[in-house]
């Protein structure tokens, strides 16, 4: 029993370092870093390169990677990315760090090479020494892990409680504005926080590598487990996070004493422990009615915080349908262009285009849940995977027509999204992101990679409808399905539910006192988004003619989201473009460029999401704005006697002064950047 306990404490220590790092970074910088896993992988990979590949001694490798590289790495990331995220909405922060988590691992592999070995040595010398403690066995890795946690806690508490730097960090947590007024540079303190964050992430990564393996995936699993402790700690209570993390580790190993190690039940229970902890605390918070996302900082910070800058903060579409909008023209042209692809491409590329269009359907679920609902759901790919698996099961094993199977399977998946929504939405957007990622990973492990769905990775056969068996016909069927789903999104946007959703998304208090239920509105869109994701999964399965469970890995889901938000999370056509890009770009690289560069598209997708920090509206909206500005200028020049566009800040000040103000108003950026922001009031940007 003691052996299980000791092993559990070691695992719990790693969870505790990870959870502690996430909590401290969040409270000190206001950024919840989804890039924690990628940072852990990067530092651990550098350690591996020094220790294993370059054969440097452990101490030298550890000092260089943890005390030299990691702080510099953290500071570089702060300088390049995190400092731009200060004062940004939660959604942008999550997206940008998610982009980093997508871009960083392939970038590191590009620089240091891909490793095939799944396990890597930790900080203890090999071969591992073992010790006997009251009859129980303890290995050197476990001992180093305990020491690691003790050192981190002692240093952390010591610095935060008893030093001038710690005082500044705690002041920054309370109010960045007041801290800067007292002569302390918040930037410099944040630099230190991110340096420490990267070091802790690296330490956790190096410590987990011997048991979980050195890969971005294993680090993400570690991060997801740490999320459970972070959720339990209500995002900011460090002692609770550490205690719960230790407890999770102990429970994970101790339950193994009572379970048959060979049974599939055991294999299912072990990865479920962190999620069970998370669920327990979620239910506890739900019963107690505690809300989660607290605005960081004090009253002064809130008063001076810039508004807007949200990737989905686009003006609403006018309720009038009159007039032919430039956006409509470009939309039709784009759809026609996509429609010609199967005609001009050969069978291989037509198949890829069809896959891209099928993915676009699934991506529309992000358009709904993120673009309309303002939430970050990280398990849409799991809903898609489940939709694919169930549809394939219905079609192949029960003989249902494929299309019917796809839609029925999607309807079956909906309650899952609804329940997750009910559990998390009340707690806040950050909880939604954390819980959905953990849920996705768990569901992938427990269901999608188990039989009867897995079938050695080949999944269940999913036939295409008889009238669309070749790639070209199937591409058109998929495009039609995309347009129907796009219409569904448009309908929701224009409906009263869409108005109510915008209301709850921008001001929960305003909406509630108007009589609108926040939970109902957000759960409604989550349900619809789950349905759309599952339909997309069904079409992807039809495209591959198999449910292919590995194609719905949650890590890939992050890339899906990165591509979509890069192009625009609110535009329906951006989803179409993103789906095509996701499948065509890597194939173009593979076909025409050296294989070394195969990962470049993923890096670019991640970098695109990172760019949201400065251009939150996404590429499509950004370019359509630029186009609208250009067209407006042309019109203004062409129409003699027409008034020039009014340049005024704020925009609304102008109409009263000039009733004949043109439709195009250029306003000062609502994000407080002072950049002019184009608002074309007749041409809806959300195409």
């Amino acid at each position, binding site marked *: 029993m003691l052996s299980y306990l000791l092993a559990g404490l070691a695992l719990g220590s790693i969870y505790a370092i990870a959870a502690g790092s996430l909590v401290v970074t969040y409270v000190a910088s206001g950024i919840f870093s989804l890039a924690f896993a990628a940072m852990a992988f990067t530092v651990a990979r550098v350690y591996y390169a020094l220790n294993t590949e370059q054969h440097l001694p452990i101490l030298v490798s550890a000092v260089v990677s943890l005390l030299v590289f990691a702080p510099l790495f953290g500071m570089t990331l702060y300088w390049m990315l995190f400092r731009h995220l200060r004062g940004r909405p939660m959604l942008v922060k999550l997206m940008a760090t998610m982009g980093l988590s997508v871009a960083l691992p392939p970038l590191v592999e590009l620089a240091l090479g891909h490793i095939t070995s799944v396990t890597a040595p930790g900080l203890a010398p090999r071969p591992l020494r073992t010790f006997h403690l009251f009859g129980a066995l303890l290995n050197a890795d476990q001992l180093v892990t305990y020491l690691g946690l003790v050192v981190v806690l002692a240093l952390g508490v010591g610095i935060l409680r008893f030093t001038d730097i710690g005082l500044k960090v705690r002041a920054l947590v309370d109010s960045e504005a007041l801290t800067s007024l007292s002569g302390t540079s918040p930037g410099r303190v944040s630099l230190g926080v991110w340096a420490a964050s990267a070091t802790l992430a690296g330490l956790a990564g190096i410590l987990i590598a011997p048991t979980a393996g050195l890969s971005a995936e294993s680090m993400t699993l570690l991060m997801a487990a740490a999320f459970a402790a972070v959720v339990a700690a209500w995002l900011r209570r460090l002692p609770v996070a550490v205690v719960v993390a230790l407890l999770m580790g102990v429970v994970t190993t101790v339950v193994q004493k009572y379970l048959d190690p060979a049974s599939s039940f055991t294999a299912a229970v072990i990865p479920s422990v962190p999620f069970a902890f998370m669920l327990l605390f979620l239910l506890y918070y739900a019963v107690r009615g505690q809300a989660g996302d607290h605005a960081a900082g004090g009253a002064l910070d809130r008063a001076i915080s810039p508004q*807007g800058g949200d990737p*989905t*903060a686009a*003006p609403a579409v006018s309720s009038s349908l009159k007039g032919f909008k430039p956006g409509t023209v470009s939309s039709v042209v784009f759809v026609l262009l996509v429609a010609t692809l199967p005609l001009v491409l050969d069978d291989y590329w037509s198949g890829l285009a069809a896959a891209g269009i099928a993915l676009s359907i699934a991506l529309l679920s992000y358009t709904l849940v993120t673009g309309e609902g303002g939430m970050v759901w990280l398990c849409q790919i799991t809903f898609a995977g489940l939709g694919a698996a169930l549809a394939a099961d219905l079609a192949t094993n029960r003989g249902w027509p494929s299309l019917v199977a796809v839609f029925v399977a999607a309807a079956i998946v909906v309650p899952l999204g609804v329940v997750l929504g009910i559990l998390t939405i009340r707690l806040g957007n950050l909880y939604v992101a954390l819980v959905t990622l953990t849920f996705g990973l768990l569901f992938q492990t427990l269901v999608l990679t188990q039989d009867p769905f897995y079938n050695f990775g080949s999944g269940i056969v999913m036939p295409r409808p008889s009238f669309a068996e070749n790639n070209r016909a199937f591409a058109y069927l998929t495009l039609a399905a995309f347009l129907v789903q796009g219409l569904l999104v448009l309908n929701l946007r224009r409906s*009263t539910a869409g108005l109510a959703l915008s209301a709850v*998304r921008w001001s929960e208090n305003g909406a509630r006192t108007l009589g*609108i*239920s926040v939970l109902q509105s957000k759960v409604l869109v989550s349900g619809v988004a789950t349905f759309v994701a599952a339909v997309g999964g069904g079409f992807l399965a039809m495209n591959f003619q198999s449910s292919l469970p590995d194609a719905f890995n949650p890590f890939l889901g992050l890339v899906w989201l990165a591509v979509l938000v890069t192009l625009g999370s609110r535009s329906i056509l951006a989803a179409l473009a993103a789906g095509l890009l996701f499948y065509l770009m890597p194939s173009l690289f593979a076909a025409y460029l050296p294989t070394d560069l195969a990962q470049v598209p993923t890096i670019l997708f991640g970098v695109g999401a990172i760019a949201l920090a400065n251009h939150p509206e996404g590429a499509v909206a950004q370019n359509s704005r630029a186009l609208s500005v250009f067209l407006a200028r042309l019109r203004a020049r062409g129409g003699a006697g027409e008034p020039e566009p009014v340049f005024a800040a704020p925009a609304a000040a102008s109409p009263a002064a000039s009733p004949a103000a043109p439709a195009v108003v250029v306003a000062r950026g609502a994000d407080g950047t002072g950049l002019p922001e184009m608002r074309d009031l007749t041409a809806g940007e959300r195409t």
Partner: protein
Amino acid sequence: MSEKRRDGAWTEAARNDEVACGLPKEVPHPDGREVPPSVISAAPERIMGMSATVSAPPVSTARLAARGVTVRFGGLVALDSVDLDVPAQSIVGLVGPNGAGKSTLFGVLSGLLRPAAGSVLMDGEDVTGASPQLRARRGLARTFQHPELFTSLTVREHVILGYRVRHAKARIWTDLIDGRGFRRAPRAEVARVDELVDALSLGDIQHLPAAGLPLGMSRLVEVARALAVDPRVLLLDEPSSGLDVRETEELAATLRRVVSDHGVSLLLVEHDVPLVLGMCDQVHVLDFGIKIAAGTPAQIRSDPAVRAAYLGEELDLAEDPGRTDSTQGESA
């Protein structure tokens, strides 16, 4: 016609004139154009779309009442056993310096904050545990000190949403099935929304998104949105802040019509003390979470506790010489 002095006060004469004569014949628009009198003064039902005029005197059961409301934030007592009544068809003012607890009391009354002790009653029924949505359904609407607008919606959509929440709530579900969002809005909705937009002079900005509106405009949008739900009790948190003298005057006239013609009850938080004293039937004064006085504006003017604790010299500016002999107000 009412006159607002540079310090924001309405003279008593102007106020009496308003009460005696009803609405102004015409109200100039901020941009200098004249708004048709029909929009402003004629057919009040058409403007506010509410049921028949309430002419009965206020009943004893207040529409909204606080009984011994206490709120603590950690060790700070933000509100200490505060009582307050908002009778039918009346304007009740709530004044006090910064940090007095006015917005906290609004939070408790609207259901966004739970009191540590005490209760909130609507029409005599305890709603302390009821959600903001439930209170909204019972006819409570409010505006906020920092306007809580829906950034991506246009001004008009704010009013439309308010209207539909009250009159067509089922559309939240049915629109998804029948696609009514693509069709022309019903005439009744268009007419009602037009009336509210016109009444608050929002016509020129109605198709602009709420993001980036100046503070004064944002407040008017909030008021329009709140009126769109046909409230029985309307809580207004500093409605005149950010408005110029003329806009304040127009808003005050609109609000008075809402009260006199449709029997709505108003509870008004204002820093502009002269405005409150010029407009309200009853005024409550909070200081450090404690109600230090309540009474008619005249009583408040002459209350020594209020003078000492809050109003000070400013009171003299707003004081009406003809009302100095008023009786002493209730002091806490």
